[in-house]
């Protein structure tokens, strides 16, 4: 007789573990399956973990969890070949409770988090790939794994299998993704002395800084680079739409080298030592790429449901909230003894009413807009850095003359009209 659980969660990332933790805490018999050697061994993110959604699950987690640095400053750099216009917010309120976010190293953090789910009573089984969902009479009743006699049954299966979302695809919940729906990110972890990090980034010992880099960092194509401070290492990475890499025939690791060698970035990382190189996809299709997320006996959470807000580099927090909301829907369904699609649909309703669904709707056209019109990055960032250079260079010409020149350099009236229209359109997709 095959084994049966109340719930099987596929994937021990932030979404899956949040779901398993919440269910186990409520006394549900839950199996958490992970294909890697340990949770986190297949997972990558830039490195920012938001405090609020994690604390909704485990209050005060940062006192015990392996977090790196609380972020007190977020910089946004619009980069040209040898200049940059930088905007920054630094607030010391982010350096004390309740905190805003932390850098984390996922291989460490995910292991710790999954361990907390195990302490609540979840059964974690690593090194197990789920090959397919077992479907009977249109209802998901379990999973087929790559272990011998690997069929396991449950009332509900939660698909937290990440960005590639193969299981939801095989259920017909979505089609194969297109290259303009995913970003390919490559990153390196660079070891650097703690004190050097603090000096270079203007930090105290218990403070961190993040830098998001736009423009020349991706050679003008849609994407961003980032540089984050860990305790005694830096994460430097670059992510661009896969379609952009294809169109411009760019090798992602060469783009990463380009960022690392950029004269404005290089001084930050000088003298550091490479520790790890990582590649991963990010689901950036947003609201319009979301699959069906509820079926009879099955729910889809996290990256597998494409829950990423690329504009605000949020994803793991949305994953956690989706995992908790899925768990709550399952608890309600269990109470009613009904695991049909209709009974589980409260997950979808609550998710779309939460910040997750609201933010996805807010930016539903943003990625596609900037993907379609690359000149925001190619043309307008150099235009801004040139204007700043002209305005701030003291060369004997009057400020009025400088303003006139900047205005003239924008181009013909037709060109100015185009810029105004682009600004309006950018506002429209971001508002």
């Amino acid at each position, binding site marked *: 007789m095959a084994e049966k659980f109340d719930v099987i969660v596929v994937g021990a990332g932030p979404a899956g573990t949040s779901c398993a933790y919440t269910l186990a805490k409520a006394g549900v018999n839950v199996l958490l399956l992970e294909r890697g050697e340990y949770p986190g061994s297949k997972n990558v993110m830039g490195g920012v973990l938001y405090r609020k959604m994690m604390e909704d699950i485990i209050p005060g987690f940062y006192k015990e969890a392996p977090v790196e640095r609380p972020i007190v400053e977020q910089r946004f750099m619009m980069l040209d070949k040898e200049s940059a216009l930088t905007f920054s917010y630094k607030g010391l309120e982010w350096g004390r409770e309740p905190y805003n976010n932390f850098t984390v*190293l996922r291989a460490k953090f995910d292991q710790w988090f999954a361990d907390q789910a195990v302490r609540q009573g979840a059964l974690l089984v690593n090194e197990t790939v789920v090959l397919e969902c077992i479907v009977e009479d249109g209802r998901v009743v379990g999973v087929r794994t790559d272990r011998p006699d690997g069929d396991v049954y449950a009332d509900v299966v939660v698909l937290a299998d990440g960005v590639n979302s193969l299981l939801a695809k095989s259920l017909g919940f979505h089609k194969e993704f297109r290259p303009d729906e995913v970003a390919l990110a490559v990153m390196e972890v660079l070891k650097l002395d703690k004190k050097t990090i603090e000096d270079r980034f203007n930090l105290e010992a218990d403070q961190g800084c993040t830098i998001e880099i736009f423009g020349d960092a991706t050679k003008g194509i849609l994407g961003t680079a980032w540089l984050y401070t860990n305790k005694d290492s830096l994460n430097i990475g670059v992510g661009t739409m896969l379609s952009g890499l294809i169109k411009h025939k760019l090798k992602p690791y060469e783009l990463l080298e380009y960022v690392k060698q950029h004269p404005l970035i290089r001084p930050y990382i000088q003298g550091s030592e490479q520790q790890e190189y990582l590649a991963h996809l990010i689901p950036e299709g947003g609201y319009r790429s979301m699959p069906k997320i509820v079926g009879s006996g099955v729910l889809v959470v996290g990256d597998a449901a494409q829950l990423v807000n690329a504009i605000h580099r949020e994803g793991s927090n949305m994953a956690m909230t989706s995992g908790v909301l899925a768990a709550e829907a399952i608890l309600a369904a269990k109470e009613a003894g009904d695991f049909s699609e209709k009974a589980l649909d409260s997950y979808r309703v609550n998710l779309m009413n939460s910040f997750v669904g609201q933010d996805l709707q807010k930016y539903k056209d943003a990625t596609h807009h900037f993907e379609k019109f690359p000149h925001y990055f190619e043309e307008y960032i150099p235009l801004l850095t040139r204007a700043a250079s002209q305005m701030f260079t003291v060369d004997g010409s009057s400020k009025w003359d400088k303003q006139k020149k900047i205005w003239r350099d924008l181009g013909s009236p037709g060109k100015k009209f185009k810029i105004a229209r682009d600004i309006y359109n950018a506002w429209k997709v971001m508002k």
Partner: protein
Amino acid sequence: MNEPAKGQTIEEKQYLVRFKADTRSHLHVLDADICATKCPDKICTIFCPAEVYKWEGIRMHVGYEGCHECGSCRIGCPYENIKWEYPKGGHGIIFRLA
């Protein structure tokens, strides 16, 4: 003077990563003929972040042992010519840090 840059090539980057390769590949080119005759760009050899795909004059070499399991090749192949599965449980790439 700036120090000479190290670790720039993909070979050097891949050397930083821990892999536990399975004995059989989880990546399969479905129709070798398509790569040879229909796909002049062989774009997978460009965008794959681990240079898993290498064109060897007449055939595509698939170095699955160094795969990061990102999924780009499955999505980016213009002919949907790559069968993409996860490596056997516990195998493949093992990230130690981020």
